[in-house]
């Protein structure tokens, strides 16, 4: 399961056959239940949990198809996990399936984070809670940095990643330039460079 990330990279090999031929539709409720369980259990990245549920347990699709879906959903805007739920839900169960999967994925964490937020508001002033949140914040920062480093590690041309990443980070964090402008300026340049590199 640990090599799912490398599997997404492996989606670069074109599929030899279409594995999404005829398949029995999955009911919206079943999709909702499956994704709700993922939403409830997934710690530290949803991908391995979705993989385990839909590929290993339910066998709704194979590894390659999963990797392709994930790879495309990563470049679409929004949250990758929600995009994957919508895409897989639609592929397996139509519009109702997409709704079931997405709502299922989001409902348990929605309720849990709100309960946590209410408790934080109630007890946040207590020194122990205040301190605990500071500790959790440091780990959360580490989690975000680790996500950045893992994404950087998966890229073929590391120096390109370094230049763009440092430029974006300095522009936003040091110069306080608007994020939209920074993304709007850097993404086209990056696209041109990639296009020239693969040509």
């Amino acid at each position, binding site marked *: 399961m*640990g090599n799912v990330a490398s599997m997404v990279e492996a989606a670069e090999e074109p599929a030899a056959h279409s594995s999404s031929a005829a398949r029995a539709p999955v009911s919206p409720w079943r999709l909702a239940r499956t994704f709700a369980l993922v939403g409830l259990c997934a710690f530290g990245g949803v991908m391995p949990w979705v993989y385990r549920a839909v590929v290993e347990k339910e066998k709704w699709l194979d590894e390659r198809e999963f990797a392709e879906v994930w*790879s495309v959903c990563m470049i679409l805007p*929004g949250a990758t996990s929600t995009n994957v739920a*919508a895409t897989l839900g639609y592929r397996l169960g139509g519009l109702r399936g997409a709704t079931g999967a997405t709502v299922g994925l989001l409902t*348990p964490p929605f309720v849990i984070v709100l309960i946590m937020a209410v408790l934080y508001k109630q007890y946040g002033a207590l020194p122990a809670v205040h301190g605990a949140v500071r500790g959790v914040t440091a*780990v959360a*920062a580490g989690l975000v940095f680790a996500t950045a480093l893992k994404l950087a590690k998966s890229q073929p041309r590391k120096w390109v990643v370094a230049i763009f*990443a440092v430029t974006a980070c300095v522009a936003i964090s040091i110069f306080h330039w608007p994020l939209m402008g920074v993304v709007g300026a850097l*993404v086209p340049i*990056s696209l041109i460079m990639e296009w020239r590199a693969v040509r």
Partner: protein
Amino acid sequence: MTLLQLSWHFFIVSLVAFGAATSVTPDIHRALVENAHVMTEEQFTGLFAMSQAAPGTNVMFVTVLGWQVAGLAGALTTTLSFLGPTSLIALSVERFGTRYRNAKWHISIRRSLAPVTVGLLLSTGYLLQRNAISPAGIGLAIAATCVLTWSKLTPLWLTAIGAALGAAGYV
């Protein structure tokens, strides 16, 4: 800040969230803390950190930030505005796209977006840590970064350790 303004901001920012939803956090911070002053720096980072410690997708930070602004209505507003339209985009790609089989365009686009996403994530991490002046907090963040980058350990254990160290007054 009205619900409409809240909704509009989360909708717009969701459109540039590529690869990782948390990458657009600096822009949300700018809107909520620096411009609209609807929450303090500490509330922002505390709520963000808590949402990352919760199970499920890491995008739930939009939910708790919305809750802080306008209660349950705010939570629903930010969640639906950030995830609704983008889910519909994903759905449209699945419905009307050419099934992207044997196509390599998505790999090229992903490789183009990734370097920028890495930079945005670095900004997000910096935002969370810039007010942590204690060496222990910085040490904990560095340790968590290394462990989570180079091992398969789930963040749950580190979060528990971080909470325990913090509660004991070490961070």
